[in-house]
């Protein structure tokens, strides 16, 4: 088993908490993990990425080779496209939020961005911000995206739920339930997207 995942977004959007949840879900399974993060200057509103590698045998490189990633998980649509050279063009999945994060003056037209996303053979594009807001927890958009991604990670869904409970546990039951609801909603949205 091998899953190489690129996590993408803008500094401050919480991509590292997605990585933490997946990491927790995987450690319970006794798999090997490596996760390269970006710290420092780019965290100030710039583009950020993280390479998350999971395998059932030891992993060497901290970086995923280009063209070999199994998935891009992005909390921002334009950022999802920045890492396409990493994605396996045949088997890779692109899972992205459709809500743009516009903090630059020359952000491209939204419709054009979505056209590029649609060109990817295996993709799920959902409005995670809207789904999270409907649930009354706008901050949980990243859990919505993770819920959609969970469909194609070959890890038992129960493990994701447990990982959410472990990681949000100290913030109280209310926060745990809100994040579990976001995870479920994302998974459902991903399923119905597949049907389309």
């Amino acid at each position, binding site marked *: 088993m091998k899953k190489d995942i690129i996590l993408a977004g803008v500094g401050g959007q919480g991509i590292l908490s997605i990585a933490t949840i997946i990491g927790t879900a995987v450690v319970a399974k006794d798999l090997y993990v490596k996760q390269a993060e970006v*710290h420092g200057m780019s965290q*100030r509103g710039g583009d950020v990425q993280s390479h998350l590698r999971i395998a059932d045998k030891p992993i060497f*490189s901290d970086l995923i080779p280009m063209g070999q990633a199994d998935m891009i998980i992005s909390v921002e649509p334009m950022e999802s496209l920045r890492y396409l050279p990493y994605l396996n063009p045949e088997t890779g999945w692109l899972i992205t939020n459709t809500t743009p994060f516009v903090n630059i003056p020359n952000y491209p037209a939204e419709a054009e961005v979505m056209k590029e996303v649609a060109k990817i053979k295996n993709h799920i594009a959902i409005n995670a911000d809207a789904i999270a807001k409907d649930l009354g927890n706008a901050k949980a958009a990243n859990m919505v995206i993770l819920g959609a991604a969970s469909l194609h990670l070959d890890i038992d869904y129960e493990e994701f739920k447990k990982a959410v409970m472990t990681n949000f546990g100290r913030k109280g039951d209310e926060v745990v339930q809100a994040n579990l609801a976001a995870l479920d909603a994302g998974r459902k949205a991903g399923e119905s997207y597949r049907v389309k």
Partner: protein
Amino acid sequence: MKKVILLGDEAIAQGAIDAGMSGIFAYPGTPSTEITEFVQQSKEAKEKGIRSKWSANEKTAYEAALGMSYAGKRTMCCMKHVGVNVAADAYVNSGITGVNGGFIFVAADDPSMHSSQNEQDSRFYAKFALLPVLEPSNQQEAYDMVRYGYELSERTKLPVMLRITTRLAHSRSGVVRKEGLAQNGLKLPENANQFVLLPAVARRNYNQLIGKQADLEKAGMESGFNQYIDGDDKSLGIIASGIAYNYLMENFKDEKCPYPVLKISQYPLPTQWIAKLVDSCEKILVLEEGMPVIEEQLRGILNRDVKVLGRLDGALNRAGELNPNLVAKALGKKDTCGVPIPELVTPRPPKLCDGCPHIDSYNALNEALQPYGKGRVFSDIGCYTLGFLPPYYAIYSCVDMGASVTMAKGAADAGLVPAVAVIGDSTFTHSGITGLLDCVNDKAPVTIIILDNETTAMTGGQSSSAQGKIERICEGLGVEKEHIRIVKPLRKNHEEMVKIMAEELAYDGVSVIIPRRECIQTLNKRMREKFAEKK
């Protein structure tokens, strides 16, 4: 023991806590910051009374660590690669004094300059200081090397450099911990002359240091960190150091590497094994993360006898990090790539946060400088360097810690009056104070703007040595009290700030303006924590 998931930086910190370290000394700098932060936040470290507060700069950190080693205890000093330049005086001379308690010096290099001004390779420093280096290839090795490094340091009486690069520092993986060791007790050096580098002592110590080189090389062949892994295909021999070894193995994950490989994780280099590799293989490919340190030595000046491939002949990129694909190409393997980035994807550079006090300071400064024209503002290392970018276009230099003050002075000396320095609070106490003293002694017509956001912001909000002391430091250096002006950078104070800046720009002498408002990131964090407590 159970595996714990740790960043490379955290593995080093945990390794030091478990190996009986008594104190860690550092100034924040990407990618080294998380080592010290981990110790500061560790409950175990607190229980063990491990000293961990931030130092004013890398040199004071290194010297304090040397003092702790003098007293017989195990110590660690951490910094980013450019910090090594600041601490270099102490580092190189500590090779001549030698150490007493185990001393590990972590140098965190940043090839590809993710968060830096250059990509210098700290192994060069160790080479000319004649000191040993450990270079882990993964998080477990990083953990294990700290313990081994303390033993090596105490046995050879030398400081040991642990050289890491960004991808190891900021990558997480599973680490198995070892049994904890007790700290050393106080113990003075056996020889009272050891640390007194008068020429007569220094000459003797230096000869001893030269005499230790053979032993250090042997240590690298016995520790298990350097490995000679033979292969049947002798058309190519490969030397792979540090994390470059991972990029090599990534290309052979489903098969055995057919070529002989020399894995390097400890220096000085094992001459005997390099000779064996060169003698048995037609050509040598050198893979190293950073500058071509091993490759240059292998080629020598004449570059005649050994056919070497690497960064110097175009087999690999001359600058920047390695990655699995670049190494695949150098190995003649098939490269892989997904689809290209669509053209509409635009760069998203970092920028000053919404609500950042520096925004208000730059807006006021730009307006106050309008009568004088462009090109007068020297800046420094910190978040405020982002004032170079649109819409501010406010600064004209960013060189090294503290250079804003002294470059402004030199420019003013040349006749560029007024000249302005923009420096952060933590950078000011790191390396700006001495420059300001030069300004005062020369009565230079400069305006020094100390942006006081009450933290070391760029590296993530570490405490600042300057906290609550800036005015008194400036007064103590001799800046006239009436030319030390404090303002609060808020949009509603814009007119007042412009007026004060204009007054000081017109003054023919040293002025200090201190725009003071807490960093929006640390403020938000504090508020979140307060809110969580109330709940």
